[in-house]
């Protein structure tokens, strides 16, 4: 079982938490729960209530819609993160591709944490803003290609 400080070291490399100070990450670490999943076990499926996000510590997780593969989540990857920000049901399913160790964060705990620690909120907003900028850049580049 990982200690809080070991979780902090892990979280530092997770994209969505990269802009949060290490001390603030200790608060995030304190609300994470380790979850072992065996190969082929379903973590969540389409239409489930979105109530938590996950990070991969070991192993791989298949993210798919029906049988179509969306992506494989590996070490340090986050999945189910949008559950933090909307109340929609899951749009994709997550199934363990191999035996895996995950860190899980419950939405309710995370929302409380965000309300209490402005440093965490600020860091996550920065990460989301960066993601959106990248998407916008990519869309812009694709649009240019199509026009050409």
């Amino acid at each position, binding site marked *: 079982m990982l200690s809080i400080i070991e979780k902090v070291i892990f979280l530092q490399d997770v994209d969505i938490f990269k802009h949060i*100070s290490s001390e603030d990450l200790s608060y995030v670490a304190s609300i994470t729960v380790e979850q072992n999943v065996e190969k082929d076990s379903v973590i969540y499926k389409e239409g489930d209530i979105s109530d938590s996000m996950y990070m991969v510590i070991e192993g791989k997780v298949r993210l798919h819609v029906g049988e179509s593969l969306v992506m494989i989540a590996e070490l340090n990857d986050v999945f189910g993160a949008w559950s933090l920000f909307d109340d929609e049901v899951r749009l994709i399913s997550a199934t363990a591709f191999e035996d895996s160790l995950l860190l899980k964060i419950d939405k309710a705990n995370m929302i409380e944490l965000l309300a209490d620690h402005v440093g965490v909120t600020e860091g996550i907003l920065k990460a989301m803003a960066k993601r959106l900028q990248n998407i916008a850049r990519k869309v812009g580049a694709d649009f240019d290609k199509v026009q050409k």
Partner: protein
Amino acid sequence: MTKIKKQIRLFFDIREGESKKVAYMFFLIFFLIASLLIIKPVRNSLFLSEIGVSKLPYAFILVALFSAVIIALFSKYSKKFHIGRLTRAVMDISILSLIGLWILLHFGIETKIFIYVFYVWVAIFGVITSMQFWLLSNYVFTIREAKRLFGLIGAGGISGGIFGGYLTNFLAPIIGTENLVLVSASFLFICIYLGKYVWVHYGRKNYSERISKTIQLESSEKKGSSFNIIRKSKYLTLFAGIVGISVLVSNLVDYQFNMIVSQNIKNEDELTAFFGFWLSNLSIFSLLFQLLFSGKIIKLFGLRTSLLFLPFSMLLGSIAVFIIPVLSSALLLKVSSGAFKQSINKSGRELLSMPIAADIKNRVKAFIDVFIANIATGLSGILLLIITIGFDFSVQQIGLISIFLVLVWTVLIYKIKAEYIGSFRTAIERRSINLDEEQLNLTDADITGSLLNVLKSDNKNQVLYVLNLLENFKSEKLIPHMKRLLNHRSADVKTAILNMLDGFSKDEFYAQVLELMNDKDLNVKINAISYLYNNSDNPEKLIEEYIHSGDPQIKIAVMMCIANSYREGAELWENAKLERLFDSVFSEESIKHLSPDEADTMRIYASNFIGISSYPGLFPYLYKVMESDSAEVKKSAIKNMGETCSTEFLSTIIETLNDRKLQKYSREVLAGYCDGAIPLLVERLQDKNEDQSIKNAIPSILGRIYSDETTHALSDNLLTGDRTLRFEMIKSLNKLKTRFPEIDTNTANVNIAIIEEIEYYYNLSAILGVEQRQKIESDKIETSTTSSEARQLLVSSLKDKVENTLERIFRLLGLKYSSSAMYDTYLGIVSNNTKLSEDAIEFLDNILSHKLKQYVIPIVETRDSEQLLRNAKLFFGIEFKDEEECISEMLNGDDDWLKTCAIYLASTSDISKYEEKVKDYLNDSDPVLRETATLALNN
């Protein structure tokens, strides 16, 4: 005396601590205007007696030309000096000019050119001193204070005008015109003292903050010039046209007046006394008309009529002068036009500017008032030259030109009226009227007509916005709209209307409100029963009827109504009856048949009932519901404990500050507690045995309460407690300083804290330097990932801490200087933009005291870690350490997170060196430190 002072404060709505600055500003404008009203008659009489009225057009042209140039130069260069220095400089120059003038007059060496210069000088002096005064006022008063107090301050100017004019009339025959100049100069001497005091005590503090805002405003101004904005808007063009033509006609009227006066009075001193006397009379007439008639006229006849008063008075005066060109006709023309200009016409112009969006108004109003008015003055000079020299017009014929221009003016007023209604409608649709900044004048029938029309809209938000604007509008015209809106589909709209029914006849609404008791929305029911209760002939019977209703919502609504009437002291509700009713609706027995969620809802309303009624006999219920499992029920109990204002709940609420789910609500309640929360909060803050998380929560509560007590508690305790608590206190003081720049903090403590933080900054930087070097060395030889990760974590944590310390230093500087300016400087320093960073350092170099500069500038300037270490040794004797010493220092420090990281790093190599110290943390209150210490020793 104190009683009289109190009455005066109450009458003028002067709040605690404002009396002195209001008095200083009142007398500053009083003496400024008095001084101006002395030299104006002197100027006029000198000009008429020495140069003659025929040359007045040249003076108008010169005033227009020089005013435009000098005011533009003044505006440009005034930004380079602070307003305190600038006010002093203008006063000094003005006094010297007046003394120079007196010497010239006294020794009879004045020339004609000099009199022209004097004429222009007085015009520019009037504009610049007035500009300066209101600029200074903006530094002295906050926006909210300004809204409340500018009327009173403005009255200081009017009184000064009346005083100055009468004094001139009284003194001119006794001491002569030339010596009046010295009286005017002596008033300016008083202004120097008053201005200096106001600047030092009230203005200087806000200077940096407002300067940065000015810069922001300027950059936005570049988006489009004022001229272009006016040109593109028909409404603004007409507005500018009206202002321009009014100045033009006023100057023609002035010329006629001066012409007739100079024909009748030849003696210089008599002329001075005459002008002084009539300028004062004009001010009094203007003041009385404004107080007694302006509001009523606008209310009865609307905007158009109010705008027509000035041109029509000029028309009648010009006709009178045309028919009988004697002094009394000229006086009628001058006094009526002058008085209406300052009273009803000014109010009309304020109404005209109302539909202009706030940001545009800020930009174009000054342009119209200064530049358009100047152009009109110049044009009036040219026109007068053409008609008097070119066509040799007599005083009557000039009146004919005025009459023609008044007709054009009238056409413009008619045209703007149509545009005005359209613009106002657009402003409502866009909701661009800022309710915080504007006090909506509902005296004009057209405005209210437009507002009532919006009430027909389907847009709920627009309807609510207008209902907000009409909050205090009690007119029959509103009744049909209110009746219709009581059936609106939105509960918010119905609630808003129910809250506006007071003051209207019961017969109009009672039956309709009765039906609303069947509404689906609880809020609507609560407001409906409240109305029915207040308007019923037999309220007791009404309550009896509804209290036994099967609908729980109706029961709640009735109970809320009872709670309100109990709080207001209704005799109907004796305590025993209140308790009986409470039990019948809210007791556990009465709600046992409800589902758990419904029961919790009833408990929440039971708490609300106690909060509203504040009946002490029911207080035990609030303690009881604090044991509930539901956070919502507890939150409601805390909120209503606050509503009761009883100090008996304070300890219970403070205890919840360490409950993550409740602390947010507890903070809000404690910050808004009526009275008495502060002493207990301060006591708990200073208590060494207090739970640390409760202590850490207290500064943010104190930071929301503006009082000397909270400011002192925070700044006096700045040096106590650990760095987390200190940071909380600094943040709270910053918040207070931003909202109330006038707060006094314990400067000595702030200075010590700044130096302590700088020392801590150097200490951390020294440790960071060591760990960074160690990391480079280790990465070359080490294979252990854990050790490398642990060191990387420590390095990144130290970097965060160095950055946090820099932020704390700037927050502390924000307590000595302007908070927002220091925050902007901090952002500049930490930005990657070299130019911004250099500008920020330059700003610090200019603003910091010599001693602080010595310490602060090196830490923001130095990027090189070796130089930082040298500075650390130079300023604080911090010696170079090895890693072992660094880890020991962190373990002995007061930062739990650095201790945790240090222990973790030590555990990856040889923990035995630190074993004794680490053992101390096995039972630490910080869970992460405790866990890391346990793991380190077990490994």
